[in-house]
């Protein structure tokens, strides 16, 4: 079919989840192709030969890789709910914060989780999370204002994965006391229908984190560290 959309990925990946949420927001029908990262499909290797990672979006037979690149492509290619602001200046700011979440926030938060809340990692994680907290000033419901945008989607890991990891680890990183706006944002974000429909069941994440903390050198941990993007 000419306009066929396929998404190659895995339920547990927060980067794949970003794309699912974007597809839901745009109300695009797609086929989800589940990948086994220990036995990557010939299609995945063909469509993302450079990184061999998920997610990969296939649109009319053409592949696009890297979750934030995919989301920008989707906003270019499809009408419907805008994922980025129209104004070039606002767009630049949205891109800046999405990149910040990707490059700075998520890696250090992940590191703090992996190190079971080691002091130096925690301090650095808090420093970066505070920038996000500050971005939610002026009573903004979402980073995108009244509606979800690229920045909200980029921070899906913070909204949902971190909570599951915190419970599995018995560690509180994003507390209501320290992050009143961010915790409220988490609640608002994960309760949006388009987001809810894209998130994996919490029990699956809990199960994964509990198992993973018991055996920290597992394969999936290494894949995550190299970023499935």
């Amino acid at each position, binding site marked *: 079919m000419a306009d066929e959309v396929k998404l190659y990925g895995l339920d547990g990946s927060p980067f794949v989840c970003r794309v699912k949420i974007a597809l839901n927001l745009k109300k695009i029908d797609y086929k989800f192709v589940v990948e086994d990262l220990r036995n990557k499909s010939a299609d995945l290797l063909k469509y993302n030969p450079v990184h061999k990672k998920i997610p990969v979006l296939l649109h009319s037979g053409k592949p*696009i890789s890297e979750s934030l690149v*995919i989301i*920008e*492509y989707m906003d*270019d290619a499809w009408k419907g709910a805008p994922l980025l602001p129209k104004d070039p200046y606002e767009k630049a700011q949205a*891109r*800046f914060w999405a*990149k910040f979440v990707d490059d700075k926030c998520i890696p250090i938060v992940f590191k703090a989780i992996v190190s079971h809340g080691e002091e130096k990692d925690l301090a650095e994680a808090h420093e970066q999370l505070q920038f996000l907290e500050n971005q939610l000033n002026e009573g903004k419901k979402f980073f995108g204002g009244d509606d979800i945008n690229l920045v909200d989607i980029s921070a899906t890991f913070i909204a949902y994965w971190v909570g599951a990891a915190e419970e599995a680890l018995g560690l509180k990183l994003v507390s209501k006391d320290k992050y009143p706006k961010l915790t409220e944002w988490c609640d608002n974000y994960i309760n949006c229908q388009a987001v809810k429909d894209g998130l994996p069941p919490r029990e699956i994440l809990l199960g994964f984190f509990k198992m993973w903390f018991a055996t920290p050198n597992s394969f999936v941990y290494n894949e995550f560290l190299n970023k499935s993007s």
Partner: protein
Amino acid sequence: MGNKSEIKLLGTAASPFANRVQFALNLKSMKYEYIEENLACKSELLIKSNPVHKKVPVLLHADKPPICESQIIVEYLDEIRPDLYQLLPSVSLDRANCRFWAAYIDNKFFPLYEELRQTLNKAGQEAIKEQMIEATQQLEEAFIKSSNGKTYFGGDQVGYLDVILGCFIRWTQHVDELNDFNKFDEVRILELAKWAKCIASHEALKSVTPGKETLESFFGLINIYRPPYK
């Protein structure tokens, strides 16, 4: 763009990321005021303008709050003045391809150079050089597909990827020389080697490319703040 001081750019002569933005501004013939930052002693303006990263480049446009991160700045400039030397292609898929390779260049290719600088042991250096060879091979294939037989990634004229990669030519050449390496080996990657010579001599880039002394002095500085350790 009218008034020269309507656009201000905070940068450092030796920074390839600042050079990148200057390259784009020059291609678009957009006037701007350049403010040289001393990264050993960052100005209040820089720290206030980029509190998250405290890095150059930073673009200050009229009375708007600052825009940071060189790729984001270049896309912004292209969006506000697409009529002046358009850098990103019009087709969505081609734009996605540009952004993919831009991410590869900044997240995979260039960090190898920082790693090389910080690695003193020979075995480590050789391993990094192997990765660099692989990375340039990937970029060679990307160039061949993107250029379609023409001079630049953008075709007949300089495009987004030419700007994104072009700004690294001088810097990486400097590191190559220090490490007895040639990433743009003509035998291995003929097309990219030809492209590198071409882009380095483009007036819009050449005019902002730092000289050897500037680079040496800057490397001296980085070696103090982020010394080799491997």
